[in-house]
């Protein structure tokens, strides 16, 4: 059982790295990078679920009998788009925060709020 699952486990490690970065980082932009890593590894997880051994890409072709599962691909395409949309909005927020506060470090943000 173990060797067959190690693919998933590697992905999980990647996920946790991303998750950790999001929580721990004080710099707003680095937090977003962590979020991106977290999300992308979830995508990799889904695609791994969809893989069929010895299958080929899910495009009908002559002489191919075994295809990989197209459904996770569809889901992940949508998830990637959602991810980038979220990132664009998040970066726009960061730019505005920088303009309003003069910093993108979480600690400094809290300090400046308390001074007001």
């Amino acid at each position: 059982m173990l060797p067959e699952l190690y693919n998933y486990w590697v992905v999980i490690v990647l996920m946790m790295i991303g998750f950790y970065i999001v929580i721990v980082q004080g710099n707003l932009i680095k937090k977003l990078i962590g979020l991106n890593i977290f999300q992308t590894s979830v995508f990799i997880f889904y695609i791994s679920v969809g893989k069929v051994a010895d299958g080929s890409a899910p495009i009908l072709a002559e002489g191919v009998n075994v295809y990989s599962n197209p459904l996770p691909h569809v889901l992940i395409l949508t998830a990637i788009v959602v991810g980038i949309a979220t990132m664009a909005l998040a970066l726009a927020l960061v730019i505005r925060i920088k303009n309003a506060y003069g910093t993108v470090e979480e600690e400094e943000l809290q300090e400046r709020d308390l001074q007001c």
Partner: protein
Amino acid sequence: MLSHLPILQVIVPLLAAPACLLLDRARAAWLFACMASLVSVVISGLLVFQVHQFGVLSYSLGGWDAPWGIEYRIDLLSAYVLLIVSGIGALMMLAANTAIRIEIPPERQPLFYVLYLLCLAGLLGIVATGDIFNVFVFLEISSLATYALIAQGRDRRALWAAYQYLIVGTIGATFILIGIGFLYSLTGTLNMQDLANRLPQLENSATAFTAFAFLMVGVCLKLALFPLHLWLPNAYAYAPSIVTAFLAATATKVAVYLLIRFHFSVFGVGFAASVLPLHSIFLALGLAGVFVASLVAIQQPNVKRLFAYSSVAQIGYMIIGIGIGSATGLQATLLHLFNHALMKGALFLALAAVVFRFGSADIRHFAGLGQRMPWTMAVIVIGGLSLIGVPGTVGFISKWYLVLAAFERDWWPLIIAVLLGSLLAVIYIWRLVEVAYFWKGEDEVCREAPLSLLIPTAILALANIYFGIDTRLPVYLSDSAAQMLFGVGP
């Protein structure tokens, strides 16, 4: 047309949004958005009738039957929540034109209406669908719109609050995505009904358990269940007032709906209980939420924040209802869904009026408000009484059912805890009332709120009283829904 109502419920606001972008004038955009939201309410009402008559409505998108295609599935619970969301959405939209006048610059106002409609469409889409991945997509539509809307507050802390909510919300959504992934790897389907059929065979699977755990945590982040509620007070306090009013009355309700849907319809009541003491966890966290949030609320100088913490407490009550684990408990939760929307809708809308006149909702502005804005203050008093649970208001009805559910189980400590929670609410409401009626106001002259704000507020306040006395409709709907949900579970 009537057979297409389930999809029209979502399509009308969804397509109205880009159409609204094409109208560049704020007033035209507002009128168009009002029309779209009013049509949505009518559709919701019709859906309730249809479900009542015909039972569960199933609509196959693209002509492909479930589970090959995406299914829209409206049962009594969905129709009930749809009505709440669209009703609040329309009422708030009517007041929006005036409310945002001082908070959002005129050039941005058309964009505001577009985002509002998108948020509404997203929320409705979460409720109406029967496909679990579709839930994720529409959850993100409503969430992205929400982040942008919250950031429109005039205070720069609105930007920071929106960013924090974005981080937390995206983590929650990603957790939900993980849960969906695990479920798919086990069953091969994304249709919720189909999942419900296939999951009982997998009860002992660790994967199913993990899927459940991640889905629950993801939803609870969106719900603002204690201790995952930290994003809420800032987001509600610094967002434009009408946005707070809209969100407080709808967004968390939809998250509770999702919790109920996952818990009862997909996994079945027995599932969670067999692997986790989930009900005990809900009871503990719900109670913690009620007490901690109410205690913090008492100390808040900003009234918007005060009511934001109060919302966290009210959500705690809803979770307690689920935690009790009986049909009556669930009914109490469903009733509170409806009632809280009415209560907080009225309260935050009244606060919007205060902000409109004073520029902020700091408690100093409330001095003497009883004389200067009598109608607005009256609404706040009614809403406050409802929060406490005074007989004659809707708040009493949901607290009553909650106590009843606890009574059925002979859980006296719980009953006492609920009553103590109400007592805490009395304290923070009384604080407000005291300042408004017994303190001298500052010398600035101020008028009552404009009619365009006052009328929707009054409607909600009166609804608080009306449904507190004539309880037939909400009680009937929530009872039927609760019975149905318990009947479906294994």
